[in-house]
């Protein structure tokens, strides 16, 4: 017999709060293991690059943080759309929980990019398409956080921010394709679905391990933050008052 899963059950903060609490340590542990493995491969196994020497090793941080900054924005836009369509409370909380982590990864992408640009291009910063569109992504995250903080009613803040997140999502394909659409200093995609990767296997494995670690880290930290947000917003409810961490 087919049993129908009621997905809306999990959109209730009271159901999701303990679930997130159980899942969080698993993702945190995976993040730590994958990060150690990725750094090991990146710094000890992957060979020296023929053109960039050891300087290319920034790739193991730069590419995962950049991917993550774009991907988190898409997930935020997804939850925002869910919130607007189904009017579920948890959707807005999820989006709000992701925004600071996304902003952090966007900042790290710009910082590690600068550290890579200086020795290879001779400059910390250029106003080129890839860099500028990533900077706009960082500003979109800051705008999201600022807007959310400026509206007192969290449900109204969710709605306003959801519109911002959805409109801002147009920037993501612009970042991704910027290296194809415009002449830019930034190199093209290192990994593509349609052609074989233009790098050594061990380099690719190191990068993918670090990318997975960034994923697990983001999930773990977003789950922790959404739990804090749930407590903040549901503080007047009975189920929160009866939690053992509150009663203790």
């Amino acid at each position, binding site marked *: 017999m087919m049993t129908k899963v009621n997905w809306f059950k999990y959109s209730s903060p009271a159901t999701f709060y303990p679930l997130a609490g159980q899942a969080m340590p698993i993702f945190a542990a995976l993040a730590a293991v994958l990060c150690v493995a990725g750094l090991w491969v990146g710094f000890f196994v992957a060979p020296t690059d023929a053109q960039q020497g*050891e300087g290319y090793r920034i790739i193991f941080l730069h590419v995962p943080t950049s991917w993550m900054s774009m991907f988190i924005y898409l997930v935020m836009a997804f939850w925002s759309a869910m919130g607007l369509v189904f009017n579920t409370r948890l959707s807005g909380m999820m989006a709000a929980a992701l925004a600071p982590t996304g902003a952090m990864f966007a900042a790290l992408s710009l*910082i590690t990019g600068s550290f890579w640009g200086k020795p290879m291009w001779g400059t910390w910063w250029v106003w080129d398409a890839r860099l500028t569109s990533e900077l706009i992504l960082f500003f979109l995250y800051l705008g999201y956080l600022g807007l959310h903080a400026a509206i007192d009613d969290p449900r109204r803040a969710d709605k306003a921010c959801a519109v911002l997140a959805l409109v801002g999502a147009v920037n993501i394909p612009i970042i991704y394709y910027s290296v194809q659409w415009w002449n830019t200093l930034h190199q093209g995609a290192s990994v593509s679905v349609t052609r074989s990767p233009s790098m050594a296997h061990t380099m690719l494995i190191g990068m993918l391990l670090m990318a997975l670690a960034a994923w697990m880290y983001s999930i773990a930290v977003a789950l*922790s*933050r959404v739990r804090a947000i749930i407590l903040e917003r549901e*503080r007047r409810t009975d189920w929160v008052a009866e939690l053992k961490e509150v009663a203790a």
Partner: protein
Amino acid sequence: MNWHSPSEFFAMGGYALYVWGSVIACLVCVVVEPLLVRQRRRTVLSLLRRQRVAEQIEREEQAA
């Protein structure tokens, strides 16, 4: 193995500032962010506990 000595590893073929700068920036972020989240959780939990105690006192006063 790429490195013949620890000093060679830390020198990163002359790119030490850039490679280690990136590593440190990332490390600081992934250490500080979870601490900030933990702080946020502690703040809301202490608020909830105080709220609970306040409600209890209110109930006792009404009963008396």
